[in-house]
């Protein structure tokens, strides 16, 4: 009996309770042992990641073109089997009570900030939102959407720094943080602001002419010389 690589992967995806990455699947092939069919297991021992990736693409296409109730999606750095959205009405009835509630607007805003500016302290999040965020942070921690990733040692009080989790990516169906809406724009803005601040500090000498202009609608606070 010969087994097809694609079908073994199908079985893995079927049994997995979380997204499986290509690397994880390769490890499964490399480390599997079996007394009943040792030769077959051995035959797949050295499967390469590229072969797994190809098989995944084939499976994805197969399930898209056949009349199936499920599909293969790429999420949180891995692959996962999920039902197609048109079957949601019945599955919701079946499972929804166990599902956590949707997130509130403040929670979504706070998550957006953390996702794009991590690692970030509570104070910095509060500065962006203009309101205190303690309650929201607590909820997000409890739901395992964010986690403490360290402390800012440079600031008095060494505040805790937060970042998003794997669970966050899964919850929103994101492949990675680069998948975040406006990811580039909002990250670049942070970088640009930091540079601007550094330059301001450096150019605090008499260079600026007092009260040169204030009607300019410039987005850039650098004084024009």
């Amino acid at each position, binding site marked *: 009996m010969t087994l097809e690589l694609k079908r073994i992967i199908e079985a893995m995806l079927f049994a997995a309770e*979380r997204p499986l990455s290509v690397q994880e699947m390769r490890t499964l092939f490399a480390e599997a042992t079996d007394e009943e069919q040792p030769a077959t297991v051995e035959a797949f021992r050295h499967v390469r990641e590229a072969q797994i990736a190809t098989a995944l693409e084939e499976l994805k296409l197969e399930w898209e073109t056949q009349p199936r109730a499920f599909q293969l999606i790429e999420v949180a750095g891995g692959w996962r089997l999920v039902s197609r959205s048109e079957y949601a009405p019945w599955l919701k009835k079946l499972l929804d009570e166990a599902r956590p509630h949707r997130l509130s607007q403040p929670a979504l*805003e706070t998550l957006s900030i953390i996702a794009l500016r991590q690692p970030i302290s509570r104070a910095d999040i509060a500065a962006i939102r203009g309101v205190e965020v303690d309650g929201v942070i607590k909820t997000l921690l409890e739901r395992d959407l964010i986690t403490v990733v360290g402390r800012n040692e440079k600031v008095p009080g060494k505040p805790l720094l937060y970042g998003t989790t794997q669970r966050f990516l899964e919850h929103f169906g994101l492949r990675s943080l680069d998948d975040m809406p406006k990811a580039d724009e909002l990250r670049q803005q942070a970088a640009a602001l930091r540079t601007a601040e550094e330059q301001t500090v450096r150019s605090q000498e008499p260079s600026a002419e007092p009260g040169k202009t204030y009607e300019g609608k410039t987005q850039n606070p650098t004084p024009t010389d």
Partner: protein
Amino acid sequence: MESDYKVKLEVFEGPLDLLLYLIKKEEVDIYDIPIERITNQYMEYLSLMQLLNLEVAGEFLVMAATLMYIKSRMLLPADQQVTDTEADEGEDPRWELIRQLIEYKKFKETALQLARREAEQANLFPRAGDSGLPVDRKQAPLAEVSIFELIAAFHEVLKKAGAREDFREIYEERFTVSDKIEEILYSLRDRTEIRFGELFAESASRAEVVVTFLALLELIRLKRLRVRQPEPFGEIYVIKVP
């Protein structure tokens, strides 16, 4: 007598939300906010909130002061601008606020798109169901040590803290259970277990010991941590639930 209960205003969670709303309603350019008009509107809204006996958070009042300050600076001729620091010189007094509003607005838009993704995602059901918690965590036993043993250990720590207090300066510090929860989790970030006593090593006061203990109980309740005691009446260990 007026009723004591206050409604929390959900629509405008903070002053920035209110400002963005006013900017949209007045159809003005966010890069060129007519500060006097917006300030007046903002103040009107604040008094309305107070009139309706809505809870006005402190942040709204801070923003009111900021708006007034910007307004007063805008009234000065350009060559008489008073600035806080030299770095401010030549800068539009509105700039800092505008920058903040634009940044916040972008994050609000991102949040909106996340909400959309969340809704889409809620229609896709993974194979093993989805309760929001990893399966192994749900099955973790509550605690392998009885609550009485925990309380006994806590009592020991508390006694030591009481003795320690005499030699220390007492700081006016407030500890919250949620802060302590994070601290405990953080101290377990790259190891799987910690001795019970170590959790309190940095606690300076009885109050802090009590709050730390409450945090520990909460974490056990949430099944994030377990406790075990290898020998009867011996050392208690706190273990992270994977």
